[in-house]
């Protein structure tokens, strides 16, 4: 065996775990993103007194697959004299950015593709910010006036809200003390508290900024502006458009994962240190079993035979997962599996909750106008984030140097931050009042007599 093959084998030997989980991510994420789309449509329907997709599969469970196939088959139109290479490249960039940043996310103490890079969290944030190029190049390559305006607007929005998100993460990192994902979650375990309670303002700022960063809910301006129709995505069709769409949902998962790791205690059980609450470990198995029972009960009522079979299949899958989660609790030799599996369950539950918040906002809130959106970002969020970083730092110093109790220090500093927030809002009110009265005044010259003209 010549050395190169030998070296190759040796390389595969050491890194096969990473490669395998890499393939799993690239395959699983589009599927998961598809089902997140289905959940969103179902939730939206539920909140709007209607049923949502019910046709494809029982309760529309096969809808994502049907969508994917449809998008694959759909005609793939490329606008003429558009820049072919970049037109193809843009959605790919936006999807790869989301997927690579998922490489560093730890879905549980055991499931992490890149075995804990030293700059874990920064890597995730950095690579996911590259998704911006997908949008910019997409807008530019489709060579239509409206796509370029849409692309420019979404870039401006992403760049300004990334600053706010970055600063919010910095204040979270101050508490955590390290960039390594495992270290952050352990810090929350050691401190016996999730950082959302220590730095609530930071979590709020990050939540708002991450909504804007994934172009969703009240900030989904670039593609929702009525005269821009679909912003940078207008000229895309078929699978290219699907790539953008999945990129957005994958980004949502990434942002949810970062928020969970940093603020919501990653894969920690709600009360990890409290030992008499250990019965909570049964919850994951219980939860999945309940879902299984629901599917089983619904299976009987399906109109078409094949749907009944499918529902039974889903029910059995849920029961199997419940068994996997429950059995190691009692069987001694399998004890080592418990933290990994349960951690993954709690992590996914929290990310699911975070994404539920995204969706909830999307169905209830109207959309910001572009200048309101930018002024909110620059006049309120970024200064507040800076002040927050300063306050959390101050609190840490008081705690270590002057021996204040940590909670007291943080409560005081949070009050101070909220004070600045109110002050900023007051300033914002005065500015918008001044602005609207200014436009108001100029608009109404003396009512000239229309008939005289």
């Amino acid at each position, binding site marked *: 065996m010549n050395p190169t093959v030998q070296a190759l084998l040796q390389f595969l030997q050491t890194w096969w775990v990473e490669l395998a989980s890499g393939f799993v991510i690239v395959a699983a994420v589009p599927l998961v993103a598809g089902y997140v789309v289905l959940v969103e449509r179902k939730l939206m329907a539920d909140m709007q007194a209607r049923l949502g997709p019910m046709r494809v599969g029982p309760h529309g469970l096969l809808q994502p697959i049907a969508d994917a196939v449809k998008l694959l088959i759909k005609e793939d139109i490329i606008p003429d004299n558009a820049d072919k290479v*970049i037109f193809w490249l843009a959605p790919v960039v936006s999807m790869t950015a989301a997927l690579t940043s998922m490489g560093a996310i730890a879905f549980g103490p055991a499931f992490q593709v890149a075995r804990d890079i030293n700059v874990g969290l920064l890597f995730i944030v950095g690579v996911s910010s590259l998704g911006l190029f997908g949008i*910019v190049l997409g807008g530019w390559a489709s060579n239509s006036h409206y796509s370029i305006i849409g692309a420019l607007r979404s870039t401006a929005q992403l760049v300004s809200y990334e600053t706010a998100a970055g600063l919010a993460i910095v204040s979270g990192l101050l508490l955590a003390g390290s960039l390594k994902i495992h270290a952050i979650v352990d810090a929350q375990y050691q401190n016996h508290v999730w950082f959302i309670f220590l730095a609530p303002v930071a979590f709020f700022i990050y939540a708002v900024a991450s909504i804007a960063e994934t172009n969703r809910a009240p900030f989904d301006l670039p593609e929702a502006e009525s005269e821009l129709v679909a912003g940078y995505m207008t000229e895309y069709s078929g699978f290219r458009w699907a790539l953008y769409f999945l990129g957005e949902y994958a980004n949502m998962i990434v942002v949810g994962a970062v928020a969970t790791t940093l603020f919501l205690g990653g894969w920690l059980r709600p009360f990890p240190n409290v030992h008499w609450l250990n019965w909570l470990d049964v919850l994951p198995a219980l939860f999945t079993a309940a879902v299984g029972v629901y599917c089983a009960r619904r299976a009987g009522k399906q109109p078409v035979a094949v749907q009944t079979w499918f529902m039974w299949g889903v029910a059995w899958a849920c029961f199997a997962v419940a068994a996997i989660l429950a059995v190691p609790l009692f069987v001694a030799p399998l004890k080592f599996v418990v933290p990994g599996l349960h951690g993954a369950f709690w992590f996914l539950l929290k990310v699911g909750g975070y994404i539920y918040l995204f969706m909830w906002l999307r169905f209830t809130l109207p959309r910001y106008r572009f200048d309101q959106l930018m002024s909110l970002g620059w006049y309120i969020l970024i200064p507040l984030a800076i002040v927050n970083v300063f306050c959390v730092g101050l609190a840490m110093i008081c705690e270590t140097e002057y021996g204040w109790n940590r909670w007291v220090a943080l409560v005081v500093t949070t009050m101070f931050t909220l004070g600045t927030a109110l002050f900023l809002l007051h300033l914002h009110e005065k500015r918008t009042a001044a602005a609207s009265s200014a436009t108001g005044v100029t608009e109404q010259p003396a009512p000239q007599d229309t008939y005289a003209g």
Partner: protein
Amino acid sequence: MLDKVIFFFFAGVAILSAALMVTRRNAIHSAIFLITALMATAGIFLQLRAEFLFVTQIILYVGGIMVLFIFVIMLVRLDVALHQIRFRLQRLVALLVVVALGAEVSVMFWVARKIPGDGLLIRGSAPVDKLPPNTEALAKSLFSSYLLPFEIASVLLLVAMVGAVVMAKKRTDAQ
């Protein structure tokens, strides 16, 4: 062995995309190739165990500066500047100067390789595991021995921000 493979891969990508960047007609294409070149250099930082610089390069250079470039290229309608004469005397002179400089410096490197002991090119280097964790070491030295340059850099950035805003602001007073 693995280091060599990674290094040659990233170096190759860097040089190729840099070359392509310089020769492209369309500014957006050259911007994209510059992005690939920067990502390749980030890879080389990683290979040199400088993770923090790897991430800073991605966030700041590629995520920040290149966005600025692409923004300006999109704002500045470039169809005006596309039809440019390719080859002129000025290019020939430039190529000659660069080739001469390159030859001279590479000869110097080549000769220096022969000097034993702690000549220009030290063979050995600190083994990997004894290296302090990169981010902590960087932070420690940045905020202890290099605190003043750090403050000056922040002032510089502030000045640059103000300058850029003032210059690019549309002259609204004209209306």
